[in-house]
Each structure stands twice: as C-alpha cells, then as structure tokens.
C-alpha cells in the first residue's frame, strides 16, 4: 500500500499545502499579535496597587495556564454560541490561541519588568516622571531585552500549536493535510510535508530570534 513515497503525488499536493501554510502563518501572526498586547495588559494589571484587580488577573492567568489549549479552543467555539456569541472558526481560533498565549507572555513580561532594578524607578520619581512616562520611556525598554528569548520561544510555540485550530475547521496546514489524506487515502506524503514545512520555518525562526535579541540589546546600548 502506501509505504512507497510518490514524488508525482508530492508535487501535486505541494501548492495546496503551501497555500495553507500562508493561513498557518497568518493564524500564528494574528494570535501572537493579540497575545503580545493582551499579555502586556495582564502583566501591568498585576503591578497596580489595586489588590482586587491584581488578584483576579493573577487567578485568570493561572487558570489559562493550567488548562489545555484544545479545551479553550473548543470552549470558545462551541460554548460561545450557547451564550449567543456566534463566531467563525477563524475568530474563535484567534481569540482562544491569543488568550492562551497572552497568559504565558504576561509571565515573560513580568519577569522582564521585575528584572529592572528599584533604583530605576527611584530615578524616575526623582525626575518627577509620571508612572506612565516611567513605564514607556524607562522601564519597558529595559524589560524587553531580557524578555525577548521567552517571547521568541512562544512565537515558535504558537506557530506549532496552530494545527489544533484544525479541530474547529480553520483551513490551516494540518486541516489541509487531513483533507488531502481523506480524499486520496494517502497520508504519508501530506503529513511528511507538513512536518518538513514546520521544521523549515521553526529552525530559522529560532536563529533569527537570537540575532534579533543581540541587535535590540546593542540598539538600546545595553550589554
């Protein structure tokens, strides 16, 4: 049966898979964009003096981090409509994956923000800066370099998690490979190609992130 690799079949399905790769990249990019912004909000909310807010956000982050992503995807997609929130697979998927990774990124940001010494805050106060000025001009720029490695890991992580969106019908790479498989009864080539495509993107991305980290540090004049 299908233990022989068929090159003509491979070439035939490659364009379709590459097209789906674009969707995968869009899903990862959009999910990450949500996570980057929302993660910062979650991290900053935990640094406010409002105890109740800090507590609720902390528990929310813990909750998201201790439940599986796949459950969250199903939850948003299938439970949402029961409360009258009907969304497309794409919208649900982006919300679920963005929310999930925002919890992880908020932890990365928290680490970065905590790594900025108390003395920097005191210098901001001595210069009479507002908390907002202190964060945007002084604290966050210094919190970014130590957070970059973690942020990069989760960028690759979110990319590798996008196949889970196939379960609610987002037409990304995995979904397309499945479709090809059930149409042709050949799974070897599509799944192998999916693996190769993921590898071909993940590996250079990890290297690029390291280079970028060095670049940012140098740009900010940090060692």
């Amino acid at each position, binding site marked *: 049966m299908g233990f022989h690799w068929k090159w003509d079949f491979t070439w035939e399905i490659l364009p379709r898979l590459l097209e789906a790769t674009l969707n995968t990249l869009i899903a990862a990019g959009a999910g990450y964009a949500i996570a980057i912004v929302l993660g910062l909000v979650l991290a900053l909310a935990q640094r406010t003096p409002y105890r109740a807010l800090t507590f609720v956000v902390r528990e929310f982050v813990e909750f998201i981090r201790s439940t599986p992503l796949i459950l969250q995807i199903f939850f948003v997609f299938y439970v949402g409509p029961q409360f009258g929130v009907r969304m497309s697979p794409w919208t649900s998927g982006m919300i679920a994956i963005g929310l999930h990774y925002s919890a992880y990124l908020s932890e990365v940001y928290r680490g970065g923000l905590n790594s900025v*010494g108390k003395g920097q805050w*005191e*210098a901001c*106060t*001595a210069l009479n*800066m*507002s908390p907002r*000025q202190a964060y945007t001009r*002084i604290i966050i720029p210094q919190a970014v370099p130590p957070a970059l490695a973690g942020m990069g890991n989760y960028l690759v992580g979110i990319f590798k998690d996008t196949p889970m969106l196939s379960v609610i019908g987002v037409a990304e790479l995995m979904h397309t490979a499945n479709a090809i498989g059930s149409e042709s009864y050949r799974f070897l080539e599509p799944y192998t190609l999916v693996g190769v495509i993921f590898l071909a993107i993940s590996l250079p991305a990890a290297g690029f992130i390291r280079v970028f980290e060095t670049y940012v540090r140098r740009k900010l*004049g940090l060692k």
Partner: protein
Amino acid sequence: MEDMSQYPLELTGDNIPMVRFMNVTKRYGKLTVLDRLDLDVATGEMVTVIGPSGSGKTTVLRMLMTLETINEGVIYVDGKPLTHMEKNGALVPASPKHLRMMRSQIGMCFQHFNLFPHMTALENCMEGPVQVLGMSKQEARKRSEDLLDLVGMIEKKDQHPSRLSGGQQQRVAIARALAMRPKVMLFDEVTSALDPEVIGEVTNVIRDLVDKHNLTMLMVTHQMGFAKDISDRICFFFDGSIEEQGAPDALFGNPQRERTQQFLSAVKEAG
C-alpha cells in the same frame, strides 16, 4: 489618628526655611527609624548628615524626595507642605498630583547613580526636561550640554553608562538632576560606591556647586574632610534622631556629646 491641627497649613513670616521637617516619624513595621525629627534647612544652606550605618540618614533624604511616605509629622518645602496638602482648611495626605507639583523643586543623586542604561549621557540629561518639563529638544540639549560641560563630561556625552567609570556616571547623574533646575539637591553617599582615586572628581563637582550656585543642599556622606570643608552645618544622627548639630568646626573640633565623640574617633581610626 494624628491631630493635624498642630501643623500650620503653610509657613509664614520672615526667614521661611527651604526645608522643614516638623515632628517627622517614620516606621517600618514595628521599627521606628526616625523619631519625631525636627530639622530646618535654610535657603542656600549646605547641610551634611553624618552618623553610623542604620541611623536613618538615607531615610531622611528619601522622605524628602517622596520615595517614602511618612507616618507622622509634616515636611514643608519652601513654606508649603510636601507630604500633605490643604483640603477644607485642614492638612490631609498629599495626592499624587500634589506630590508631582511639589517634587519638581527637589532633585536627588544616589549612591549607585541609577542612570538609565539604554540612554546616552546626553539623553539621560535631556529626558526629564523634554518629557516632564515639556521643553523642546533643542532647548533641552543646550541645557544638558551646558551641565555636562559643568561636570566635565561633555566629551563623553554620546556614551552609554556602561561605557563610563563610576565617577563619570555619578557626574552625569549630577548633571541629570540639575537639568530639572531643582531648588533643593539631595546627595546620598554619592562617593561610597566609587574607587578611592575617582572620589575627588565627584566631590570637586559638588564643591563647585556650593561655591557658584545658590542651591540648597542636603548631603549624606562618610567623607568627613569633605563635609567639614564645604558644609554650613553638620547634623550627627544617632538612632533616628539628631544627637548633635552645629558648624563644622565646632562639631568636628569640639563635639559635646559622648556618642558624637565616639563616632568621630571611630571614623578617624578607620582612616
């Protein structure tokens, strides 16, 4: 609750001090770090605080810089309450807005410089004037360059702090604080983290400020010779209150209290 009616809403009359600590108490939990402190600093006066480690010297400066809140008493700056504000004819704890208004009169230099590492020396100096005072970049640059020149750091203006020695960083930090044109400057052991051979370059800058500028200054230092040279008055702190104070010649030459004598002879022995 403390009865706030014992404190005036503002200081009136002739000779209003630039800084007045009135009955100021500071506690950390059960530990009383400052106990009903009264201290005036006159306009243009240079007051140096000395005393053993843990006696509350840094805390005095940090309260004045509003880095710490106080538990009792009131601090006045230029006659107006700093730690409090007037509301319906009574003093209540200061709002963030009131603190921001009052804080603009005070500048501080720290033992560990606390320069912004992602900015050059010049950018460090320009940051406050541009962001906080709303000055144009051009004007802020001019002011900052003049001050970097004053502290002898103009050649290094485009260097990041990581490329500067401790003494150089501290001089930039002094220029950065001066760029905000404070009325009161605070120096907390600004030479303690420095190698002995560069202490002079920082003390010379402060000496210069005392000679040529009419700044009010409150300084904590372990450099007794330097303190004696430039101060108008020395306060010896012990256990959260002023044990003895006076003109440098009197306090160093003829200390009255036993604890002062012990401290000064211990310092002398240590070199």
